[in-house]
Structure formats: C-alpha cells, structure tokens
C-alpha cells in the first residue's frame, strides 16, 4: 500500500491542481492576515472557508482523481497487489496531498504573521485539524461514490449533490425539524443530528472554541455536559474518526467486489 500511496502522492504533487489549491490557501491566508490585520476575524473567516470549501474540494478532487487514474488502477490491478492496497493507497495519496496543500498553504502565512507568539494558535491548530479531518472524510466519500458509479458524469453529479446536501440542505431540514418539534426536549436530538453530518460536527468542534460563551447559555443538562466539559470535544473527535473509518471500510469492501 505504501508504494501505491507514494506513487499517487507524487503523481498528485506534480499535477497543477495541487499547486492551485496550495496557492489558493496561501493567498487566502495572506489576504486575511496582512490586509485585515485582525487575527480573531481571520480565524472566523477561515472557519467559514474550511467547513464549506474543504469538503467541496475534497469531494471534487476525490472523484476527479478516481476517474482520471482509472488506467493507472487497471494497470495496477493486473499486478500482484491486493485490491485494498491499491485503493487505499490512492485514497491516502489524494487525502494526504490535499491536506498538505491546506496545512502548508494556510500555515505559512500564519507562521510568517507570528502565530506562535499569539494565543490564537490553538484556535488555528484546531481549524487545521478539522480541515484535515474533513479532507479525509470527503475524499473517502467521493471515492465511495466513484467506486459505485462507472459513469463519470453521474459520479460527479452525485458527489456535488452530496456536498450540497451536507453543507446546506441538511442544516435546513435540521432547523425545520427542530422548529417543528420545539415542544419536545430536543437537546439530545440536536446533538445526535450534529453527529450525523461531518460538516456540522466540525462546525461544532470549532464552536466549542469560538462561541463557547453563547453555547453555555442554554439550560438542557445534556447541552451543559456536552459543551461545558471536555466531553463534547472527545465525543466530537471520536465521531469524526468514525466518519473517516466508515467510508474507508466501504472502500475496502466495495473494491473487493468490483469488476474492472
């Protein structure tokens, strides 16, 4: 698997898209920090970017890479290599190279700005960790969709739909159901609803840092335990890990059954 990972990674590192992605984040970081000069505001803007854009880019990249490397995959399939190594290797290649572009692209301007001396370093590190998680989750989901759809256009369509659903529509439905059932105790339901969507989950993790004052204004005991103690942080990270592991397991499972 490591060999495949190596080749996929270097293949991607050489493609111009990685540079575009890297340059985008570099530019974003520079604009946010040096034109705005307000670290707190930069972190908030960055959060919005990370929970929306990182999943989108992870999705598109994942699907694109899968379809584009079809020949490579077929070449590998005839070699004495395990299928799971081939697909996991490719998946990790995508996820790691995307994560690297993200971390370096945003990290460099922040380091240049003097992040290490600032107390925003924890907020910022959390943002990057969440960004990396989201990259891993959404490229895995994209691989899943691509594995299940031979048709490129369909695969792209479904991936974008998935992103749209998780980034926007889900929250709309979520909000509507909360308002609809507002007479019932909802704190558990709302936390579970958050766990079921990796974007919401990541957002919650960041909220725990940025908006803890607001979150503690609510009465439910479950909320209090979740937001007021490290319980919320631990559960959220666990759930994020599950969100990475499940799609990966499906990649392994699906790839074993698939014909090429």
């Amino acid at each position, binding site marked *: 698997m490591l*060999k495949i990972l190596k080749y996929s990674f270097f293949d991607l590192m050489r493609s111009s898209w990685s540079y575009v992605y890297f340059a985008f984040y570099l530019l974003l970081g520079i604009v946010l920090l040096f034109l705005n000069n307000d670290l707190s505001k930069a972190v908030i803007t960055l959060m919005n970017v990370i929970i929306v854009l990182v999943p989108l880019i992870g999705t598109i990249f994942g699907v694109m890479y899968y379809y584009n490397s079809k020949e*490579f995959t077929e*070449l590998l399939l*005839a070699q*004495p290599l*395990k299928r799971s190594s081939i697909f996991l290797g490719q998946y990790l290649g995508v996820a790691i190279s995307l994560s690297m572009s993200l971390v370096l692209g945003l990290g460099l301007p922040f380091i240049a700005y003097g992040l290490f001396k600032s107390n925003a370093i924890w907020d910022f590190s959390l943002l990057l960790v969440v960004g990396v998680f989201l990259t891993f989750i959404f490229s895995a989901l994209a691989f899943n969709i691509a594995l299940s759809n031979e048709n490129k256009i369909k695969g792209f369509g479904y991936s974008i739909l998935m992103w749209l659903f998780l980034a926007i529509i889900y929250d709309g439905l979520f909000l509507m159901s909360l308002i609809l059932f507002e007479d019932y105790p909802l704190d558990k339901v709302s936390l579970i609803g958050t766990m079921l969507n990796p974007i919401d989950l990541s957002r919650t993790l960041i909220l725990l840092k940025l908006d803890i004052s607001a979150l503690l204004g609510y009465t439910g005991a479950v909320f209090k335990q979740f937001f007021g103690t490290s319980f919320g942080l631990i559960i959220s990270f666990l759930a994020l890990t599950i969100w990475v592991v499940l799609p990966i397991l499906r990649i392994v499972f699906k790839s074993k059954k*698939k*014909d090429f």
Partner: protein
Amino acid sequence: MVEITNLYKKFGKNDVLNGIDLSIKEGGIFAVLGPNGSGKTTIIKTILGMVIPDRGSIKVFNTDVKNNSDYRHQIDYLPQIANFPSNLKVSELIKMIKDLRGKTDADQNLIEKFKLGPFLNKKLGTLSGGTKQKVNIVLTFMFNSPIIILDEPTTGLDPISLIRLKELIEVEKSKGKTILITSHIMSFVEEVADKIVFILEGKIYFKGSIAELKTKTKQQDFEHAIANILTENHA
C-alpha cells in the same frame, strides 16, 4: 496451469459467461477467439482477478484466485488499451512497475528492440498510440513469468514492431510458457496459435488446433472456418 470450472458472470442483465470450463495444462500458444461481446476479455479479466465471477472457480497453479493476489506473480498481462497515467515519464513507469513487481534486467533489451530509447524521458500523455503499445509490450515481457496473457497485442503496431512481437512470442513459447492471446487479426492468430479456444455466447464452442477446426467446419481456410461458425450459429 490454469483451471477454470463452471464459470458464470452477469453484467447487469447481460449474461456474459455461461458456464465456462477450460483447462490448460501444457505450454504453448492459445488464441481465445469469438465475436465482439462474446466474453473473451471477461475470461481474461477473471483469470487476472479484475472481474469477480458470480459462480465457479479459477485456479492458477492450483491456487484459487479468489481474494488472492500473489498468484499474479506468475502472470504477465498486456491490457487491451494501453492507457497509462499521463503525468508519468516512460522511464518512471518502468521503474515503478519494477518497484511493484520485483527486479528485472530484461527491460533494457526490450527497449532497444522496440527503439524506445528516445521516448524514455517523455511523458506518457504525449506518446502516440503505437508507442504506448510498445511501452505496454516492454512492461509485459520484462518479467519472466510462466503465463503470459496478451489482449489484442497488435493494436497500433507498425510492421517492424509486429515482427519483433512475433519473435518475442516465439522465444517465450520456446521456454515452455503458456501464452493466451486474443486478437481480431486472423492471419496473426493463424500464424502464432497452437490451439484455438472459440467462445460464443459465454460458452466454449470449440477447443482444439486450427486443423481440427478446419475439419469440423469443413472449410479450407481458417478465416472462413471462423466465419462459418458465426453464420451457422446466427442463422
């Protein structure tokens, strides 16, 4: 060496393989023939583990291919359409495959034979179809495995390269290897094949030498013999 029993495969509603039994015990060149969509490539891909059969078993050197990948060390495979990652250079691709499969020195010889030297530092995306096919051939023949599977090996080759390819096949055959070939070029098949495996509608319709086929169809000419099978079965 290759033992296929009772193999079934459906793609959606399409029955592609309908109970294939095929046993290859000896060395030599086997041509797998059949009309378009008869399941030639599917059989080859099931042997390679790329397509997973619905039913039946395949054994290569007495090991079941199911959920196994090590047996592919025994097989050199030349895929039908030579599509390679376009970002890679030829030399990198060769290096990579060597890295994945193990060491070999035969590639130098083959590169010379097919005059690929000038292309080594070019990216695969920029190569012509024929050149890609030559790279494909180098990748296949550089390992010394007892089974060689060639899916449409002649595609895009110029006459000189075609001759070189035939020479290569003869050399490998003389080493006592088993070589499976699919091709649409009947003259090529007639020239190299020891035995014909003819597949029709997912079943083996005929297996035997060219001479036997001619007798069975009562035709003098190989090409007509094939045509005869097709017209009789479609009539």
